């Protein structure tokens, strides 16, 4: 078992909470893990990504080689495209459709989505809307994680347990909202695959 995941987004969007959930689940499953993060200057509204690697064998590099990522998981649509050279031919592109516009030359969202659709295996999900409909805008990241869950190679229950562990300090209500967000994203992806 080996999954190499590129997590992408904009500094401040909180991709590390997704990394923490997958990482905790992987460790609970007894897997090896390496996760390279970006700290420092680019965290100020610049593009950020994290290389997350899980495997049942010892992992050598902290960085994923080009063309070897099993998944790009992005909380922002344009950012999902920035890392396409990392994606394996049979890899999944899973992205939020909600743009984060903090530059004057941000491209048309329709052209971005046209590029996303060119990737053989992709899931585009409006995580912000789903999260807002649930009454919890802040859990959009967990919706996206849910949409990726069928392809991560970890049992769904294991992700649920990881989220429970991570958010338990913040109380039961926060845990439940995040679990709900996960299940909404998961149901969305399942429905797409089954159709």
């Amino acid at each position, binding site marked *: 078992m080996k999954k190499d995941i590129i997590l992408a987004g904009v500094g401040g969007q909180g991709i590390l909470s997704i990394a923490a959930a997958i990482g905790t689940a992987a460790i609970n499953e007894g897997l090896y893990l390496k996760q390279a993060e970006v700290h420092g200057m680019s965290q100020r509204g610049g593009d950020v990504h994290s290389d997350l690697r899980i495997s049942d064998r010892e992992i050598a590099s902290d960085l994923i*080689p080009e*063309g070897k990522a099993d998944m790009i998981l992005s909380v922002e649509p344009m950012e999902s495209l920035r890392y396409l050279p990392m994606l394996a031919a049979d890899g999944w592109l899973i992205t939020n459709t909600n743009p984060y516009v903090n530059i004057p030359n941000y491209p048309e969202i329709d052209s971005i989505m046209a590029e996303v659709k060119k990737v053989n295996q992709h899931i585009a999900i409006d995580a912000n809307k789903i999260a807002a409909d649930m009454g919890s805008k802040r859990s959009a990241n967990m919706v996206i994680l849910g949409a990726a869950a069928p392809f991560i190679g970890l049992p769904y229950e294991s992700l649920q347990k990881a989220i429970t562990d991570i958010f338990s300090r913040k109380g039961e209500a926060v845990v439940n909202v995040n679990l709900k967000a996960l299940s909404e994203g998961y149901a969305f992806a399942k429905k797409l695959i089954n159709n």
Partner: protein
Amino acid sequence: MEKILLLGDEAIAQGAIDAGLSGIYAYPGTPSTEIMEYVLGSREAQQQSVRSGWAANEKTAMEAALGMSYAGKRAMVCMKHVGLNVAADAFINSAITGANGGLIVVAADDPSMHSSQNEQDSRFFGKFAMIPTFEPVNQQEAYDMMHYAFDVSEKYGTPVLMRITTRLAHSRSGVIRKPVREQNTLSLPKMRNQFILLPANARKRYKVLLENQDAFLSDSEQSPFNIMHEGKDHSLGIIACGIAYNYLMENYPDRDIAYPVLKVGQYPLPKKQLTELYHSCDELLVLEDGYPVLEEQISSFYGLGKKIKGRLDGTLQRDGELNPNKVGAALGMLHAETLAVPDLVAARPPKLCKGCPHIYSYNALNAALEMHSKGRVFSDIGCYTLGALEPFEAINTCVDMGASITMAKGAADAGFVPAVAVIGDSTFTHSGMTGLLDAVNDQSPITVIILDNATTAMTGGQTSSATGKIEDICEALGVKKEHVIVMNPSPKFHEENMEVFKKEIEYEGVSVIIPRRECLHTAARRIREEKKIKEIESMKN
């Protein structure tokens, strides 16, 4: 024992705590910041009364660590690579004094300059100081090395250098801990005058350092971090330093590499193993993340001897960090075709946060300088360096910590008036104060703007040594009281602030303007923490 998930930086911190650390000193700098942050947040470190906290700069941190070592206890000092330039005087001389309690200097290099102004390689400093230098391959080794490096430091009575790079510093992996070791008790150095570097003593101490070189070499040759992996195919021998070894192995998923490989994690270079590799292989490939330090040492100046491949001969790119693909290409592996980045993807550079006080300082400053020709603002290192980018384009230089004030002074001395310096609060107490004293003593006509957001913001909001002290410092250095002016960098006061800037820029002496408003992130965190404390207190009542 249970595996814990740690960043490379955190593994170093936990390793040091478990190896009997008594104190850690540091100034924040990416990618080294999380070492101190981990100790600050560690309950174990608190229980064991490990001294922690931010210093004014890397030099004061280095000297304090040396003082703790003098007193017999184990000390560690951490900084980013360019911080070692600041600490260099103390660092190089500490190799002459030697250490009493174990002393580890950690320098975190940033090849590819993710968050830095150069990609200098700290292993040069290790060689320059002639002390043992360590370079871990992964988080577990970073942890394990702390015990080992403290032992080497105490065995030979020498400071040691630990060099890491960004990818290890900021990558997380599972680490297994060792049993915790007791701290040292207080003791004086064996030779009572070894720390008095009068020439007569220093000559003796330098000879001790020179005599130690053989021991350092033999320690390297027996080090558990310098490992020779045999291979059947001797057409090539590979030397892989630190995390470069990982990038090599990534290209062999089944670890079935046919060439002999020397993995290097401790310097001076293990001569015995290197010589063996050289004589048994047709040519060598050197993989190192940073400068070609090792490659240069083993390559002949005249191009004699066997072919050495690496960054110098063009087999690998001369600059930038390594990765699995670059190493694979150096081994002649074909790179599979990948998808391209669509043309529409636009660059998204970092920028000042929405509502950041620096925005309003720059808006007012730009307006005040409109009547003058361009190129007059000398700046410094921090979030406010982002003022170089659109839409502000407000600054013209950024070189090293504190250079804003002194470069403005030099330009003003040359007759380029007005000259303005823009520096952050933490950078000012790091290295700006002495430059301000120079300007006051010379009565240089410069305007110094100290952007006071009450934190070290760029590295994540660490405590600033300057908080609450800036006006007093400036006045004590001789800036006239009426030319030390505090303003509120808010859009509400734009006109008023612009007039203040204009007036002080006109003034033909040293003036200091302090736009003061707390960083939004620090303020938000402070409010959260205060709320939490209130909640706990109300529960008690």
